[in-house]
């Protein structure tokens, strides 16, 4: 923690002296302040235990993610499990709200979208991955005049990262809904409560807003890194 804090202080000073900044400088400061690109590239898996606040109710959840893009979210709703998972090919869900108690495969479109949620953020080492990035003009987010980085993935999806100019961590990420009636609608994730986890700075609070309205708030109480993961849990149970 101390090391990362010291780096933060250093970059704040750098801000005071630098007039104009390039995209590379912004990203270098970002990597440095979150613990170094190599540290993040050696991260294989995470297990996050947290709470989701939605529509005035709080639900505990566990989320397991591994490289390259497998993930499983289990939300406990009054003893009943709500599940969203992706095994690298197929996205599936168990949604007791929609009357379903059995696992259901999601549509091909939704599976494609789920497959784009990479374990390692697309912005990290973006060029090697075939994505494009650019530094855009400053925008105010949460009262902060942020540094704006636009990422265009090789699939053509745009994503905007809003960096705090003092600490060089993103405080908001804007994506666009990919499908359905909401298609094209901006979806904003506000990130805060950054704290150090095994040498990496990670946000512990995430608020999702659509059209300025809060739709979900996640609190990450515990983030474990490089945990043992039973890969079979990601697989659609019907195929077992």
């Amino acid at each position, binding site marked *: 923690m101390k090391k990362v804090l*010291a780096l*933060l*202080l*250093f970059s*704040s*000073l750098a801000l*005071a002296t630098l007039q104009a900044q390039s995209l590379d400088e912004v990203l270098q400061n970002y990597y440095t302040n979150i613990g170094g690109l190599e540290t993040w590239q050696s991260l294989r898996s995470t297990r996050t235990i947290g709470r989701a*606040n939605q529509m*005035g*109710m*709080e639900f*505990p959840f566990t989320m397991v993610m591994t490289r390259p893009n497998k993930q499983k979210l289990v939300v406990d*709703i*009054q*003893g*009943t*499990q709500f599940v969203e998972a992706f095994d690298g090919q197929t996205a599936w869900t168990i949604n*007791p709200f929609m*009357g*379903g*108690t059995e696992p259901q495969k999601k549509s091909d479109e939704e599976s494609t979208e789920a497959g784009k949620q990479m374990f390692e953020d697309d912005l990290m080492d973006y060029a090697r991955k075939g994505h494009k990035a650019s530094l855009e003009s400053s925008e*105010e987010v*949460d*009262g*902060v005049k942020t540094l704006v980085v636009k990422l265009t993935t090789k699939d053509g999806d*745009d994503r905007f990262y809003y960096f*705090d100019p003092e*600490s060089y*961590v993103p*405080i908001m990420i804007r994506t*666009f809904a990919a499908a359905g*009636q909401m*298609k*094209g*609608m*901006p979806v904003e994730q*506000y*990130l*805060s*409560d*950054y*704290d150090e986890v095994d040498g990496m700075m990670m946000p*512990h*609070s995430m*608020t999702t807003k659509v*059209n*300025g309205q*809060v739709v979900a*708030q996640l*609190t990450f109480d515990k983030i474990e890194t490089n945990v043992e993961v039973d890969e079979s849990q990601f697989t659609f149970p019907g195929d077992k």
Partner: protein
Amino acid sequence: MRHLTLSFLLVLSTLAIIQAQEAASLKIPFGDLRARDIGPAVMSGRIATLAVVESKPQVMYIGAAGGGIWKSVSAGASFMPVFDDHVQSIGALAIDQAHPDTVWAGTGEPWVRNSVSVGDGIYVSVNGGTTWTNKGLKESERIAKVLLDPDQPGTLYVAVQGKLWADSEERGVYRTTDFGTTWERVLYVNASTGCADLTMDPRDPNILYACMWDHRRSPHFFRSGGEGSGLYRTTDGGATWTEVTGNGLPDKPYGRMAVEIAPSSSDTIYLTVEAKEKKDKGLYLSVDAGQSWVKQSSDFNTIVRPFYFSRLAIDPNDAANVYKCGLNLIISDNAGKTWRTVGSGVHSDIHAVWIDPNNSRHVVIGTDGGVYESYDGGYAFRMYMNLPVSQFYHISVDNDQPFNVYGGLQDNGSWVGPSRSPGGISNADWAFTAGGDGFYSFRHPTDKDVVFAESQGGGLVRHNRRDGQSKNIKPIPGKDEPAFRFNWNSPIALSPTNGERMYFAAQLVFMSEDRGDSWKRISPDLTTNDPARQKQKESGGYSLDNSGAENNTTIVCLAESPLDEQEVWAGTDDGNLQVTTDGGATWANTSPHIPGLPPFTWCTSIEPDHFRKGTAYATFDGHKQGDMNRYVFKTTDHGKSWTSLVTDDIEGYALVIRQDLVNPDLLFLGTEFGLFITLDGGRSWQRFSNNLPRVGVRALVVHPRDHALVIGTHGRGAYIIDDLRPLRQITADMAGEELVFLKTGSTFIELARPGDWFGGAGNYVASNPNPNAQITYLMSKRHTFGKMYIEVLDQEGQVIQELPAGKSAGINIVQLPVRYPMPKAAPTNNRMAMFGSMITPTLDEGVYTVRVHKGKQTFETTLELEQEAADRYPAEERKLQANTLKKLFDLTEQLGYVYYASGDLQAWADSTAGKVGSKKDQKGLQSLADHIQAWRDTLVALDGDGYVAESEAIREEISTLYLEVSQYPGAPSLGQIRKTDLLQQRMKAHMLELERYHGAVRALSDKWSGKGNVRPVEMRTMEAYKRA
């Protein structure tokens, strides 16, 4: 390291000094403070243009006159506004049909009525409307059409109609060949002539026809037509143009024309001509590619109001099937020889028509009252009831609970609707009170049924909502009195000091104390009375347009001081701002004392101060004279001197200013481009854009009881900022504080009310105010590192809720649901039971403690909850309900505990069975495990499908009862109370059963643990269960 830290602190303190200096003008991010739109969509509003994706006609874009662009991907079942960050007046839309995610939008409506808004150039979206880029033509003000060359990607032609109220050289036909990076003006006539229509030969995109239109508006006159008007043709993609004259066309000069080449036949061209001579007006047809012309028709709708209706549409599959926009839509199936008029309840004033190339009987039209769609070739139309693009001129409120909003709309009469309604504010919640164009509309302060409403030119009525009858109470000149000149939008003002007094004005001020049955004149002519500005009867140009829209030298603003009934202000449309301090005996014109105000500048609002006599605020607007400057002024001496409150923060000409009723320095300003707020009496302004588009804001009202600001827009209906109290408390010395709570008073716990039935997606439903208690605080800096969260504690000091905190610099509003958290429950596959354990009872009334934990610091405040229906549901009844719910809550958790704790026992027995010595012991353990499991299975119903194949065990019985009791705020029924007691007894038995099994398992555990790899049994405790 220490050195670094010191340097860092130094930098920080420098920043702090800079911040302190800036604090001289008080600006804070508005953060979570949002405007809530309340519609209405029932009458919708003026549509200027529309465009549809031909290969996917369910995808459509609607361009509103003042309400931006709306996209539907569901054939109108639902719409999404996609242009909120930009100017809201839309002139033309064009989809690249080969790449339908590319959409061009020319801004600035071309249907140039007196109240029309302005645009700022041409935009393009390459992602189906998600984001837009301005591609120039920023001084064009209005764009009538955009045409894409289908053969040459990146080549476009734009009909720039240009400035309405001034000369401008940025008008005519523009062409780009590089996707809007550069533009070339390829056809220009003169500084008062723009391009009003443009059509492209479907066979050869290098052939185009352009209708050039010489026209001008002023506050008091409209001229359509002049030497500049004419029809032009190019055959080389705009490089050269030839004027088309003679050969059957009438003699020039012309006014406004419309032209269309039939998509199915390049030789067939239709043209409507506004000529100087009546005999020459009408629809012309060429069947030889413009070589010769024949007059086909002079039907009323082919010649009426060319400035408003000059638009044709030709069936893509039949060149003889013609649609002409007009007061009504007319359709011909014989190339314009005869017509039928569309009725079937479609709003008058048609501006846009789209005919489906894949199904000619599918037609979509845009009118002064929204969008309609026909599938039978234009006989029967259904309306899209979900486009809230209504154009308010004025807004008022009453004091009902919840309060109602009154207002008048462009061409859509006067309406009243509630500020909240069960299930959301829907179309059915709005009631019509008077017809015509609507303007000021007020409810009588004490008589609930009486509404004063107005139509254009001083048509004032007193409407009775009980029986729907209206009495016309417009003042009528008596013997020896001059004719009264009423503005299009004449002012009414209710006295703030005497509920039975109201004011009305023509060029004179009238006062009535008998609800308008009689009027007393309390002023002389307060205008310039300049005869040069009194030409309404001659207005219109080549088509006389004596609608009253250009009535000038009239009074347009009126207000009595809330502090002094003798102080009355009257502002005129020709630059005067008059005040009396003796109830009308004498008047003084104060506008000569206003620095920098050009002569004849329209007074758009006057706001007498609510705290200091003689102080007032005024806005002026010169845009109808071509002056786009901002004019906002304040006087503190009854108008003897004025100072400007304009800063660079303000965008758009000023339309209305209002003062808060609590904080004298809190002012609200509406301009053509949105809402601006000052916290420091006008030294600095900030745009308010949280859910409020860049729309013309013409009306602002601070609700005297509910701390709400009601915003009337000219294109997006009405909005409400529900709680102004946070803004009222912000002072300069808070700017540097880490965290300051802003008080919002007690929260009333609302009763849940059943909402709408299954109306589907087609009807607009606006949201209600947030029912939660709100924890509001101001932070000077965003919180990014370390934990920040909120705890809410009850009167006993128990934490009842933990909430994520707001982290933004500026105003944070954290929602505290006024419900208890959910109980921990056992699983179920019974849907109602699952809902039952999720929908929890409301919190008790009383004072709660709020603690914001931010890193190592804690900030504390309180909030108070009150019950909305305390009188109807007495405390003892609600206590009985609360006690019953508490029992059921505990039962839910106990049952969950029994279920999971017995699971611990079962799992131990099951897993140990394989690890012990003898077969007999194994069998005994397995049998015990099976017994426990069999009993557990009787506690919950997990065999269901979550719908109709469900069963019920005690888990479901508890939760279903819990749901029933929690849904009614009074005493439970006797049956419910008895059933609760019964469930308690049964639960006691299950608890004993758990203990019995625990004893049995514990005995075996003692026997086996430590032998082999058998571990002792661990059954979770109730505390551990609740914590998990």
